[in-house]
């Protein structure tokens, strides 16, 4: 419909030029002034995210994979989907015994590691119907709103943080920002956005039935943030 394109643009141009708009300058002081002391950021993130039912685990670089494994075993999860080609994926796999039970992935107790290593088309039913939990990294978190920053990649697919009923997200305690605005400026996002970037601030929720908050409508029912110090 290139006719529509040229007609619309020509009309907008004529109409704008007949009555130009002079916008006021965009004063971003209000965003720049949203600052928290470094030690206040994590407690604030935690408070805001817990208010919308996010759960937190504490761990270190040395033990997070064990913390995650033990947590999921305790919660009765049977399958954990992960990104095998990422450094975190390799660390996670090392916390599981190497012999693959049922010939599929590494397992511990009743918990089996499932690698997300093939296109979703080859994997859809399993993904939707046979996976309890998914583990992803994050680029950090935002103090103002209590939000994780996710940056899916070739190695770490998008649906890892969406389809499994439990989303486990790793948060390095030194990657905290004051605002969304600061995170995108500091990291020069505008110079190269990925296929998909996300802020995630809790498990999936809805209030569409009489404003009653219900969790786990389409996305994960639970969001577990593992804080790594």
């Amino acid at each position, binding site marked *: 419909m290139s006719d*529509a394109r040229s007609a619309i643009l020509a*009309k907008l141009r004529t109409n704008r030029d007949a009555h130009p708009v002079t916008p006021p300058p965009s004063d971003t002081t209000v965003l720049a002034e949203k600052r928290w002391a470094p030690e206040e950021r994590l407690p604030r993130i935690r408070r805001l995210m817990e208010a919308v039912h996010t759960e937190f685990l504490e761990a270190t670089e040395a033990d997070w994979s064990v913390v995650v494994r033990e947590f999921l075993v305790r919660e009765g999860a049977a399958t954990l989907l992960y990104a095998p080609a990422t450094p975190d994926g390799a660390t996670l796999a090392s916390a599981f015994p190497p012999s693959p039970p049922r010939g599929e992935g590494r397992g511990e107790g009743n918990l089996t590691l499932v690698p997300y290593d093939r296109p979703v088309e080859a994997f859809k039913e399993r993904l939707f119907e046979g996976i309890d939990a998914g583990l992803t990294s994050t680029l950090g978190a935002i103090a103002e709103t209590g939000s994780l920053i996710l940056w899916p990649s070739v190695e770490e697919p998008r649906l890892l943080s969406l389809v499994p009923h439990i989303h486990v997200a790793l948060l390095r305690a030194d990657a905290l920002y004051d605002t969304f605005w600061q995170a995108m400026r500091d990291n020069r996002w505008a110079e190269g956005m990925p*296929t998909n970037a996300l802020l995630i*601030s809790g498990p999936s929720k*809805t*209030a*569409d*039935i009489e404003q009653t908050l219900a969790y786990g409508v389409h996305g994960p029912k639970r969001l577990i943030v593992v804080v790594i110090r």
Partner: protein
Amino acid sequence: MAEHPPQAVNFAAASKAALLDPQLRGNFRRAMDGLMSKRAVQFADAKEWHDMRALAASVRLRTLAKLPELLETLEANCTRNGIQVHWASTTAEANAIVLGIMKRVDAKLAVKGKSMVTEEMHLNAFLEQHGIEALEADLGEYIVQLDGTMPSHIIMPAIHLNTKQIAHLFKRKIKEAESIEDAAYLTDLARRILRKKFMTADVGMSGVNAAVAETGTLCLIENEGNGRMCTTVPPVHIAFMGLEKVVEHLEDVPPVISLLPRSATGQPITTYVNMITSPRKEGELDGPREIHLVILDNGRSSVYADPELRDTLRCIRCGACMNHCPVYTKVGGHAYEAPYPGPIGKILVPQMEGLAKRGEMPHACTMCNACVEICPVRIPIVEIMGRLRVEAVRPGDAVKDAGAQASKAEAMVWKGWAAMNASPTAYKIATMAMSKLGNAAPTGLPLLKEWTSVRAKPRFASRTLHDLAREKGIPDV
């Protein structure tokens, strides 16, 4: 679409019916009170509210200042990223574009995230005529679609129904539904049904909250995850935006994304902020293979022509104006019979659909200014409302069907009124007559009848104000 002489939509009659429905009024009152108090908590810091609002308004005004250029930049960057851009002047053109894509990929089922533009297009009904199922996946939209009605609020589509009504609806329409009047049960049931649909859908559809010209990025915000499902799982994603939704820079997104959910539902942020910049790239394991962006005009370029009416296009669709409107909160969204109800609907829809059909809408307003006080991008809604009332009776070309509401009788009455007030003698005689004979007017007279149906008949004083003032010795000067 062929233009028949448009039939005027009768808001007065529909609102009367709504006012007599205590269930509906109760549902709305409760919901709107809740939304208003939650919003107020978010903006407790008056300076932050003032400054954020000024910033967001400046972002939207900059969009309007550079609209044609930003749309071209957006198109160029989206195209570079692999997103296919389509332009539609009318909703019929937009529907045809969608059908073309659906036919090419042989699609039978589309899952949809919330999109107000597709409501403008009546896309679901259109696709159904062509044998394609378009399933709403936002829980509120899903409920409304099951019920065969329209959304009654742009953010909370099923707010007119309570849990009991929704439980009954599910029981009637869904085979496996049990009679459980519990939001958690109903939500989980919808989850189970819709997950199967996400898995098998051929196409996913979504709206756009902000499209970034600088990077060619489509930003979508939502709480449920259905938006992410629709834009990630099916092999084809079609996104819809009104042409005003573009912003210049990526850094323009945070102020808009901050004010929108805080104004809408009183949340600091939605669960998901989803920024989509390209279809699946080489080596990536999921995401759609194709993304299409449909940019719809549908009257917006005409709204843009008038320097005053143009401000209508600042809107970021938060719905806060509805939540605070004394008319909307009493009659609900359906009474407007329009894709956009409430204050923003009252100024937007008449401009899109014309004043012959929608001439009543700008009058469904008490001009109390509540919407103007809370609008996060400072749209002068009430001034535009006043302007549209004038356009409705003054033939011209500023608005579609301007002058459609002009009435010779009304014009004559006002002419007579002006003449009476311009002549001291006529004025004296008329006021004297009113004070002596006014009370004898029967309540059956055209205007009085309406007024006295719910109110006492006003009584004229036996002496005019002028008369009393003169007696007190106040000089005429």
